């Protein structure tokens, strides 16, 4: 018998949208304890002992996949990685068929990344195990938002009443959506900064303030969250050039000086140095928490999988 989560009631982690603030807090609290574990020499726990975790990535990823893999292994799960873009999709198999095939192997945790919004929801309806969304299209990337939240909470001592700027390619970013929802639920003031081609005005309906002047937008913020400029989408002509983008929306020392003196700088990676962020700022250990974000990523994923597994086991016992 494993102890049931106090607040966390989900069977899947498909997005931030369905989560209650107390569920978010419970994940972060548990993740805090896993940060301590991860800093020890002996890093093993057995929360996922005997469980099988399959990572299905329909889109290239190095960091997220590695982070999920390490998180699973530290908790004792049997982890398997499947690079889906190289396999059955090319043979014409549908997403549902792939899911059913995997389902027949009785995994307990399925970590999925897919290039289309809603694909992970669709998959979750068809399988019996717990599904974690590792990013679907431009919809959500919940573990990224959770790790960002944990990073902010540890750096700032709280996760509410902060002025947080999210800068860059908001339109194509699932990271921005999940962060916007999470930070909104935790009652922060959010500013979205970027050229109007990359920050659709509809985002203001989520209670965010929109700035197309970065200098104005960065005034007195506590957190500066930079997003990667998705170069692979540049053929759409969203911005005139990388150098103009860097001039107007790249984070450099001069622009950062407008934020609060203790403002932290975040980036989900991988970074384009000299496009959206100046290299020296990214490396400034007094301002940049980019390395901490990676560390928190493993802890948050351990916590999320632990809680999902507890619900999974308790459901099994209830039957």
């Amino acid at each position: 018998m494993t102890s049931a989560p106090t607040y966390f009631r989900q069977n899947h982690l498909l997005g931030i949208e369905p989560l209650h603030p107390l569920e978010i807090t419970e994940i972060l609290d548990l993740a805090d304890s896993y940060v301590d574990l991860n800093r020890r020499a002996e890093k093993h726990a057995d929360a996922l002992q005997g469980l099988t975790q399959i990572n299905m990535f329909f889109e290239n990823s190095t960091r997220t996949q590695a982070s999920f893999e390490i998180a699973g292994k530290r908790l004792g799960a049997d982890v398997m990685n499947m690079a889906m873009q190289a396999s059955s999709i090319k043979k014409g198999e549908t997403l549902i068929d792939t899911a059913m095939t995997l389902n027949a192997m009785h995994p307990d945790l399925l970590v999925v990344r897919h290039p289309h919004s809603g694909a992970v929801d669709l998959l979750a309806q068809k399988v019996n195990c717990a599904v974690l969304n590792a990013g679907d299209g431009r919809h959500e990337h919940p573990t990224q938002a959770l790790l960002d939240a944990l990073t902010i909470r540890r750096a700032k001592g709280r996760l509410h009443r902060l002025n947080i700027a999210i800068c860059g390619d908001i339109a194509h970013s699932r990271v921005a959506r999940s962060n916007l929802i999470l930070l909104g639920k935790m009652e922060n003031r959010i500013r979205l900064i970027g050229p109007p081609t990359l920050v659709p005005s509809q985002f203001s309906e989520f209670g965010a303030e929109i700035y197309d002047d970065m200098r104005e937008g960065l005034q007195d913020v506590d957190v500066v969250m930079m997003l990667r400029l998705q170069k692979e989408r540049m053929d759409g002509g969203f911005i005139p050039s990388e150098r103009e983008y860097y001039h107007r929306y790249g984070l450099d020392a001069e622009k950062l000086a407008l934020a609060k003196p203790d403002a932290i700088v975040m980036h989900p990676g991988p970074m384009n140095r000299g496009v959206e962020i100046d290299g020296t700022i990214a490396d400034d250990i007094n301002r940049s928490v980019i390395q901490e974000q990676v560390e928190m990523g493993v802890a948050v994923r351990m916590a999320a999988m632990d809680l999902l597994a507890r619900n999974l086991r308790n459901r099994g016992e209830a039957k």
Partner: protein
Amino acid sequence: MTLFFTNARVINPEAGTVSPGALLVKNGVIDSVLPADAPAPKEAEVIDCLGKYLAPGIVDIGVKVCEPGERHKESYKSAGLAAAAGGVTTIITRPDTTPAIDTPEGLEFVTRRAQADAPVNVLPMAALTKGRAGREMVEIGFLQDAGAVAFTDCDHVVSDTKVLTRALTYARSCGALVIAHPQEPILSKGAAATSGKFAVLRGLPAVSSMAERMGLDRDIALLEMTGAKYHADQITTARALPALQRAKNNGLDITAGTSIHHLTLNELDVADYRTFFKVKPPLRSEEDRLAVVDAVRSGLIDTISSMHTPQDEESKRLPFEEAAAGAVALETLLPAALRLYHSDLLDLPTLFKALSYNPAQRLGLASGRVAEGAPADLVLFDADVPFVLDRFKLRSKSQNTPFDGARMQGKVLATFVAGHSVYARD
């Protein structure tokens, strides 16, 4: 053969009335509309309507029957049965089959298939350009001779304005009706939703409702140049309505339709990526929906159609962006339209004006009326009986309806085509 419909509440869309009455039908044609207390002639077969509504059968412009090419999705037989069960007495078929209906030979094939298998009237449309590719116009004259009632490339927009101008000019000389899909094709490329808060929340590629107005504006400009006879297949946004109004005021030969789904659903119905709610153009905001309902009430929008588009399960069981667009609606058209009646948005004569009378008038058909000399294409229905829709009971070969599990009110009791019963509810 003589039929006498008695004890009916007769909906007359032409006069805008609903009144108790009786109907005498001789040899498939309405002989006379009589007062409620008229006695049945001796030789007539009497049909007691039990006080239910009797209306002119629906004339549905833009039904996709998947012959040739994808008969597993819908055949003339299954579509015909679905139409009969839905009170649709005339289906106007779309040419967006595989291959497209763009030659007289292709048109003859579908006409033959329809006559053999469908219990309702089937009138085919032909493509406007060969292969619906937007490059060369079809043989409009020959196709008209073969029975094409209108010309349309369906959801393919003819983006080359030179080609479209010539096709419109040529069509005018033949007196042919051109039906177009008003949409700016580049702006709407790849879109699966309408721009707005919902699309942002779901992370779906979206198109502004402005793309519809731009498409309509362009077509109206070409109508001014060519004087062609034109019908917009689906007007679904508030933004497009003033342009349509101006074009009508200026005396252009223009009419417009809308789909039952855009009248009764909005973008939020997509909820958690429910692909049965993916239609083209995508569902709009509630403000747009209400504006379009208003436009039907005022007569600015002339017709309501099912935009019946069968898709098999495989085409829909995909991530939302990849899933095929379209919904079946022949059988749900009337109960869905009655939602507008039950919510006091539209009265019954207005509904049947848009469902039956106006489409028939636009196509030059004698049907769509309850009047002396009109064909006895009739639907008898109970407007109030409640039911929960079970998609697996639909007669279409494909069951991709957004109304699965929906509570609806109103059922067809019987359908007659030229005085023959083609459907009777058990």
